[in-house]
């Protein structure tokens, strides 16, 4: 089974302290560290486990700048066989539909049985997988937390339903799935693993290579635009406790006691 996993390089939530930039329209991106989007990492692990069981190959793909190559290498160190970087100045500022269109152009050049993406990435929109499936005219399942390979024509995929129930659906291949965290336990990738794949060639493809009209993607083609980015004002009933950890705990306990919570 030939599997393609779409990944994204995002600011690492665990290792950053987020602050807004001076203009107030984005994060202050100096001093941020980046890594692969957590959901995508689960998707790659799942792809590797499927290939370990039934054979085939795993390709990781991303739309991004030169630095995005780092996340492709990390996923290749995990066990993905090859990587593709889709990078072009024309891609910058693409909205979800733009990203899906860029991915679609490359996917059509190959032949993949299964396309995986993370359920969502740093912006929380969770839109690329679904749009990609529609553009390719493939079936789509979102928030997948279990994959059983039936044969080379169809697979069963699971999804957790509100309340803790589980449903399983049969889906025809080729298809697109968006993967939920917790589907597996992604393996560890150390510095040594990344160095081992440091010399592997990763092709970089631009708008011309993909045969995309530069005006249809990127800023130029984006039909959704971010107009604001802010920390919400504190509403009524919300209050931030301040002080050292101990002081905060003390204040919290006091409040809980006062309101009869303890």
């Amino acid at each position, binding site marked *: 089974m030939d599997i393609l996993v779409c990944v994204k390089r995002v600011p*690492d939530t*665990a*290792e*950053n*302290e987020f602050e807004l930039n001076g203009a107030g329209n984005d994060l202050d991106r100096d*001093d941020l*560290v980046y*890594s692969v989007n957590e959901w995508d990492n689960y998707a790659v692990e799942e792809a590797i486990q499927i290939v370990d069981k039934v054979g085939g190959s795993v390709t990781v793909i991303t739309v991004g700048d030169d630095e995005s190559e780092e996340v492709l290498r990390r996923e290749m160190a*995990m066990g993905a066989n090859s990587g593709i970087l889709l990078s072009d100045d024309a891609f910058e500022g693409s909205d979800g539909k733009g990203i899906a269109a860029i991915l679609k152009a490359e996917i059509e050049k190959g032949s993949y049985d299964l396309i995986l993406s993370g359920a969502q990435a740093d912006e929380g929109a969770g839109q690329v997988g679904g749009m990609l499936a529609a553009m390719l005219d493939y079936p789509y399942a979102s928030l997948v937390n279990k994959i059983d390979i039936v044969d080379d024509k169809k697979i069963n995929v699971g999804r957790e339903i509100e309340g803790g129930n589980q449903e399983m659906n049969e889906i025809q291949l080729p298809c697109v799935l968006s993967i939920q965290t917790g589907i597996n*336990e*992604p*393996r*560890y*990738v*150390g*510095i*040594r*693993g990344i*160095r081992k794949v440091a010399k592997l060639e990763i092709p970089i493809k631009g708008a011309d290579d993909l045969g995309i009209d530069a005006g249809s993607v990127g800023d130029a083609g984006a039909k959704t635009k971010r107009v604001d980015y802010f920390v919400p004002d504190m509403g009524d009933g919300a209050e931030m406790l301040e002080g*050292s*950890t*101990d002081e905060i705990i003390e204040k919290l306990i006091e409040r809980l006691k006062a309101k009869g919570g303890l």
Partner: protein
Amino acid sequence: MSSIIGPASYKLFGFFPTVILSFILPIIGIGLFAYIMARRAAPLVRAAPDDRFNAIGKRIKNLVVIWLGQFRQPRYMLAGVLHIFIFAGFLILSIRSTSLVVIGLSDGFVLPGFGGWLGSVYNFIKDYAATFVLIACIVAAIRRGIYKPQRYAVPEKYGKDHTSEAVFVLGIIATLMISESLFEASELAYAFQHTGQEHFLAPLSLVWIFKAMLSPASQQFLQGLHIFMYFVHDVTFFFFLCFLPLGKHFHVITSIFNVFFMRVQKGNIKPVQHGIKDEELDDLESFGVKKLEDFTWKHMLDFYSCADCGRCSDQCPANACGRPLSPRFITIKARDLMFKNYPLSGEIYKSDLLVEDIYTEDEIWSCTTCGACEEECPLGIEYIDKMVDMRRGMVDEGMVPQSLQKPLKALEKRGNPYGKMEKKRADWAKDKEFKASHTIKDLGKESADTLYFVDSITSYDDNLQEVARRTSIILEKAGVDFGILGKGEKDSGNEVLRFGEEMLYQDLKEQNTEAILESGVKQIVTADPHAYNALKNDYKGLPLVRHISQVVAEKITTGELDLKPCQDKDKVYVYHDPCYLGRHNGIYEDPRQALDAIDGLTRVELEKSRDRSFCCGGGGLMLFYEPEEETRMGVLRVNMAAEAGANVIVTACPFCLVNIQDAIKVAGKEGEIEALDFTELIESHLN
């Protein structure tokens, strides 16, 4: 007939010369033994290299103290003393056993030099040796067979009980002692009956008793007994020799080598592969121990040498708190695997991944590398390097628990396991109150004699930043010209190395080494024993590294630090030895001296202290690991302190402080007992 006929001249049933037996038995025995040993050596030949021919002086000292002197035995008094008797008896009787083999071929054979007074003295001593060995065997058998001390029990998941083998061997040893004594006693009784001449014998020795018992026996009986006992001894002797390499009594043969080759340096971790320099690590195909043959030959010798005494597991804090780790069975399971994969005959089997075959991942992650097991082992068996080697193998295979992946990635990206910003590493010094009266030099910009290496937890943990501030105040008071590296400092990597992420450790080490050497300091001081250990024992080419307790003890002696009388005289203090300060680096007295310099401070000792200190739960990455366990190690430790009658636990390690503070809450002892860092106690008593 003038005297008894020896086995070299005796004719069984009047025609069969028994000398044939005394010739064939040693040939079969030694031949078989040589074959078994050759098969046993097979895995060692395929093992990874190990560098054990350095520091010969220290090795000889270990041989004299730990092997010949049995110095570690009395740490378990009864078992230890029994062992010393049996061990000493074996050494003494080995001469007698050798000459007995030859006596079977040549009547009245005496080893060269043992003809005159030396022989008489030797005989006197060996008669008592045999007697004491027999008594020790009987006591040991009663102990093993009837009282069954808990430490020998084999939990079901680890296989079947080992008592029968132990008692069987005690029986063999007893047979050797009795047959040797009866062989001699029958000859002497015979001679006495014949000549009436009394031969001097060690009073109340086994031979003396047997001779007295045999004096009324007929000459024919004595002659028969004499020959029979010779061959009982001969057969038992060679059977025992060949039986030794088949189980836990292999240590009788291997112990001398195992102790000679044991670890001579403390606190450090073995290189990934001996003979491979750090720069060459990238060229290695595979990392760490994944399969049996990836262990070094010394580590395999360890497996062969284990006497199954259970002291390691008895001291192991992970075992005590119910984690799935018992060091004893790390060894026993590996030895069983060696015996299975390298059988005495037939083909050698291919090994599988150890963590799938005989160990579990949790078993290997459960170790805090506290070193209690190694400190205890009378045979010098190592565990920490093996754990680290197996973790290196797991990291290489990507088998790292999710709970550890985040901090490892943060260490890679930010140089600390919390993923906090590098530029905030020195934020502890920006505390308003502290900043008002103290300035800390940044060695990135200024210079100083001494570097205060803060390390991650003390730099970033809200509560532990207090340790950094107090350490600074102590250094200032002591007149030390010091500074910090600030954002130039990375995690020391003590646990990164010990958790098997070698390349990440190498990265951290390089960055720190460069920053430290660039700062031009003449010495390094730290209040974190884990940092102290890594900088001192794992890093190379750094200036002198000292722990704050050493500085304090020294400055008190020189009078540069002066302490007030104890501010809380009603309290009872107890000092908890951090593993990486005590066991791994031998610093036991400095912190105690400093505490005792506080006038009027009442200090008690924990029963488990100094080199028997009990780990609080582990530091560094161990704080992130989520082990399966019944209770927390720290809770056990807090209970020990409570039993010792203490209400203040003083420790000199930030990780100990965190673990013990948490454990006090879990144990429900808040208000009864408190934990205090060494620097806090000292700083609050500065004059």
